[in-house]
């Protein structure tokens, strides 16, 4: 029998606000343990939370970028559970009335993955296991999170990966999160079930907790899919449970079963007032939203004629795309910049993180100057590429590396003269060419190019040579 895979994702996105969600402590990754905390975020008796306005603004930004409705009134609730990383023994979250509802992310196929809601909440502290003991680092306690919850619309591990990449990209574009998976600033819980192909009824689901790598998430989904199918085929039943993925063995293990499921006893947090928004506040935030990756992608492909694959590479990293946008001002052919970025610059930026950061010495205006010289015919591509390498190494402008004479280009008369000289002094090559050896022309071309010191345009020279020989 064939089966449909049904996947829903709950993604936690850590916001990069300056301070935590309910106090003035710094929201900073990598500080000395327990240095970014205060009576409020360590949950001392008598302390009260006060909601960071910036978190609300970021949630609204995310809502608008993910096509959600923003609730004009939303509330904070307490999620009660006991764990050493949660000093109040409840997490302040939104359960009954979240700030955003009903959005979607559109995949490349055009399929829409619906978002049920987005809510704001605080992160728990971090447990550090060291030589048999467990330590608590409260720096992360109270860091603001958005939880983005989809409908079970995802039907393959590839779709899940694409959804997550897109979500990551959008969050970075609107500047609310760094979305660094390795630092845990984005992670997700994956709900997986299978059902007979075409069936309306959903199967029993399992939930894989805390996936912090797209690669492992794909593997975990594929593993669970196979496990569910095998269970069903062998007459067994899938048990509803919470799982942990083990990368070493590419398998999952149970954390707790449905019977042990927590009863979170959600109720409205009486310490916080309703979050009431006005429509004009929301519109104001809408006006600050940058151009989103989907819009840019379409522009690059349709208006600039950049191949989709390359356009996607540009769009994928916000810093790259922003650099590209700044560099192409006033240019006839944006594609040249795209080629330089993907063909030249990316070579020195090996990791995803390096590309994401896109820290290069050449400024967008220097890039723009370089391409303008090409477009005005003053500099040929060959010299331009060589100059770019030096520019990237030094951060100096193109004018430092090409001379006046380089930029004068070469007149048709001079080119003709050089071609004639080459033909004269390479009789054998001419003979070969005339006898059908196309390659022989390359020798002539090389000879001319050498004389122009690279200023000549190879195509033009080649056609001129052909004309003269004939």
């Amino acid at each position: 029998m064939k089966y449909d895979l049904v996947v829903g994702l709950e993604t936690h996105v850590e916001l990069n606000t300056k301070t935590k969600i309910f106090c003035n402590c710094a929201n900073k990754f990598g500080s000395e343990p327990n240095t970014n905390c205060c009576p409020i975020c360590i949950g001392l008796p008598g302390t009260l939370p006060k909601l960071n306005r910036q978190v609300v603004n970021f949630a609204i930004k995310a809502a608008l970028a993910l096509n959600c409705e923003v609730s004009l009134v939303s509330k904070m609730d307490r999620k009660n559970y006991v764990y050493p990383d949660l000093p109040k023994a409840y997490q302040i979250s939104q359960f009954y009335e979240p700030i955003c509802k009903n959005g979607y992310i559109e995949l490349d196929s055009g399929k829409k993955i619906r978002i049920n809601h987005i809510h704001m909440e605080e992160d728990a502290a971090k447990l550090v296991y060291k030589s048999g003991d467990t330590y608590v680092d409260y720096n992360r306690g109270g860091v603001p999170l958005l939880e983005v919850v989809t409908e079970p619309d995802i039907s393959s591990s590839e779709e899940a990966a694409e959804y997550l990449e897109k979500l990551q990209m959008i969050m970075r574009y609107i500047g609310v999160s760094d979305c660094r998976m390795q630092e845990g600033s984005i992670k997700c819980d994956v709900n997986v079930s299978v059902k007979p192909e075409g069936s309306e009824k959903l199967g029993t689901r399992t939930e894989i907790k805390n996936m912090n790598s797209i690669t492992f998430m794909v593997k975990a989904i594929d593993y669970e899919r196979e496990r569910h199918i095998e269970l069903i085929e062998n007459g067994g039943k899938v048990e509803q449970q919470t799982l942990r993925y083990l990368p070493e063995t590419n398998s999952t293990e149970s954390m707790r079963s449905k019977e042990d499921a927590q009863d979170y006893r959600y109720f409205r947090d009486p310490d916080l007032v309703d979050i009431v928004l006005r429509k004009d506040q929301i519109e104001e935030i809408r006006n600050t939203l940058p151009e989103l990756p989907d819009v840019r992608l379409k522009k690059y492909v349709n208006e600039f004629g950049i191949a989709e694959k390359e356009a996607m590479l540009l769009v994928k990293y916000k810093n790259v795309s922003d650099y590209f946008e700044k560099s192409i001002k006033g240019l006839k052919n944006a594609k040249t910049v795209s080629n330089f970025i993907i063909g030249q610059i990316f070579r020195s930026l090996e990791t995803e993180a390096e590309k994401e950061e896109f820290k290069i010495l050449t400024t967008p205006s220097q890039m723009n100057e370089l391409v303008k010289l090409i477009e005005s015919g003053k500099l040929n591509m060959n010299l331009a590429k060589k100059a770019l390498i030096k520019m990237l190494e030094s951060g100096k402008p193109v004018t430092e590396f090409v001379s006046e004479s380089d930029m004068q280009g070469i007149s048709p008369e001079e080119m003709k003269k050089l071609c004639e000289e080459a033909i004269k002094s390479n009789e054998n090559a001419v003979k070969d060419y005339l006898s059908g050896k196309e390659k022989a022309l390359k020798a002539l071309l090389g000879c001319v190019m050498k004389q122009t010191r690279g200023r000549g345009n190879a195509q033009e020279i080649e056609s001129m040579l052909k004309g003269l020989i004939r």
Partner: protein
Amino acid sequence: MSAQKRGIIKRVNSMLAKKEISCKELTQKYLDEIKKSELNAYISLSEDEAMASAENVDKKISSGEEVDVLAGIPMTLKDNISTSGIETTCASKILRGYRPIYDASAWKTLKDKGAVLLGKTNMDEFAMGSSCENSCIGGAKNPHNTGYVTGGSSGGGASAVAGNIAAYALGSDTGGSIRQPASFCGIVGLKPTYGSVSRYGLIAYGSGFDQIGPLTQTAEDASIIFDAIAGYDPMDSTSNPNYEPNSYESLNNDIKGLKIGIPKEYYDGVDEEVRKPIEEAMKVYESLGAKIEHFSLPEVKYTLPVYYILVCAEAASNLARFDGVRYGYRTEHYKDINEMMCKTRSEGFGAEVKRRILLGNYVLSSGYYDAYYKKAQNLRKVIMSAFYEAFKKYDVLLTPVSPTTAFPANKSYSNPQEIYLADICTVPVNTVGIPGISVPCGFDSKGLPIGMQILGDKFSESKILNVAHKYEIATDYVNNKCLDMGVRL
């Protein structure tokens, strides 16, 4: 006698200003009397801190510096109000040894004005109770008759003020915890509007109900304290950003034409002895030109179950953090963290606290939330609108504080409901979020004090303090009886 009873705060302030007594001398007097006292009003003393602040005030006064009216006045805080560096236990074993690292906002305000903190006062554990007997050190005693309870939960504060071993006290009121002990001990207790005094630093019992307020000799004193501690605090999101209290200014306003509503449901099942002086008070008000009108407020009868469901739910969540990990008591013997937490909580909490935690978790648990918590929340709104309607017709409401006077100490109850029922007159104020003040209005045949309660609309503290003050003046403070004990000034 009556002259003595007029506002102790102004009196002490003037004595200090005229250098009739130094602040250090005065503070020492109080500390000496506290140590001699058998009222069990205090959980802990902060002698060093008290003498240091007293010295500070003395210096300022002798150098001619202008000081606040509250500077140098010896006072106390209920032991659930956080005091930096000073043990704060909520009268619970589970917080034994806990020294907060920050000051509650209300205390910080008074401290900055030069208040002298004598110590922390006794209470029902985590403010849960109405006798003060649910305290890990045993209940405070009623200065009018030590065989009777002080009421609670702010029993220690009420006992200290009535017994003249503190000029005034700050308590907290979640369901009557300021007003009822004030009534039992024959002093004034003000429960302010929810949102008028910052809750920051008050160890939470029912977060949506708790309010800090003063326990004082007179309405005038209550007004001075209230004006000092009320107002917006950015640390408390539920505090009103637009409220600037100035009740003292209107304390002597004429109350001619004032409409006083008498909600009859409050008087059902109230002792004849308690009812009588309140009816006398109505006559006093009529003689001052106020209009008395009886009416029905039937929604009041839903308040007790609504209150207990909601407040226990919040308490269960608020008290979940006391686990022995970071501060306070930790059990001695345990195998792992789960056992440590279980044993710490089992040993650290008293019976009443455990009962309310269980009840609270029950009404929030999956499958029961709709039947209890949600229903109670909806009913709370119904009760609120009934009161708002009443305040469209009446300026204030006049009711009893408690159906009885103080009950005998160490009385055993077969059913906790019996005790909960005694809260019937006080819990509506917290459920609705309005202010209420308890004012002494007489004594029963045993000589125990009786209080009456004046309720006002939200943020109408000025009005109810004015109404209370006018009564005290009209009756020449005859019911604010000064006991012959403690520090006599």
